[in-house]
């Protein structure tokens, strides 16, 4: 293994584990019925939603090459499939990949 890559992996995993571990550590004094727990629950959902929205609207990597309209159409249609399939997670997910490949070729 190349030393630089191994160091980069170790540093990445340390930075990731830090947030997880601190979260587990501070959870010890928090009751699931407390206001603090409810607040953190809202923070977690809002943070995740922000991350997902940012990934779609301001993506990194190969999605940058896809137009805004294509991304928007794929997400909107996938959500429609999600509701049409009685909130199944697999159908809209597979549909999104196929739809993206088609739109990118023909629009």
């Amino acid at each position, binding site marked *: 293994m190349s030393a630089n890559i191994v160091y980069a992996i170790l540093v990445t995993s340390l930075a990731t584990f830090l947030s997880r571990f601190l979260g587990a550590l501070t959870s010890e004094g928090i009751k699931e019925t407390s206001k603090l727990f409810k607040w953190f629950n809202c923070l977690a959902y809002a943070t995740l939603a922000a991350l997902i929205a940012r990934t779609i609207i301001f993506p990194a990597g*190969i999605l940058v090459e896809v137009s805004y309209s294509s991304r928007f159409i794929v997400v909107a249609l996938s959500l429609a499939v999600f509701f049409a399939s009685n909130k199944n997670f697999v159908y809209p997910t597979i549909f999104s*990949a196929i739809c*993206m490949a088609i739109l990118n070729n023909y629009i």
Partner: protein
Amino acid sequence: MIKKNFFFKGYRSIFTHDSPAIALTCCFIAIGALFKNLGFNIQESIFSTVLTYALPGSLVMAESMLIGASLLNIFLAVWFVNARLYPMAVSLFPLMMHKSQPKWKYYFSCHFIAVSAWLIMKSNYKKIPKEHRIDYWIGIGSATVSVSVIGTFIGFSFSEYLNKDMMMGLAILNPVYFLCMMVGASRTIPVSLSVFLGTILGPLIYLFSPEWSILLAGVIGGTIAYLIGEHSVS
């Protein structure tokens, strides 16, 4: 020790009809292909998936390495992106804490905190007795890590067969899957509002502060949602 029946119950949770296994595998196929293009070998790619086990963090590491960033820069960039794992841990572990369980289980299993495992646990924890929730969680985490490793291996091995269209398809799959999971989890006023406000504020704040956008959107959106939720209850 770990109760086998609850562990395997958790492990099997990714084989349900609406399992995250397909989406997770596809996401890590893309990561495996990316690692190969970056010059990683197969051991390094799998080592990275197992040790990091967080897609945005792996992507940031890959981007940072491409521009030749220092180790300190990589650490700070990944820490910023993955700081969301802190509120995720605090909003999950109190649901699993039980005095009969040893602490090492909690410290060890916090490594499994990632969006898919977190959302599966949040949807199912009420069906499991509190005493055994940690074993169930370790089962879910082991299953999602296994799937991620398989995806990384496939992506690394078949990277030359993945054309641009396929990579784009794999890239959109992950946010769409998580978006559906979040919409599906929005059953109460505070959670629905948190998801809605986070979705609006995340990209909006990004225009002014790209580095802080996710954290600020989470804190502002989550706090507003919490206060409105408390007000509606009272």
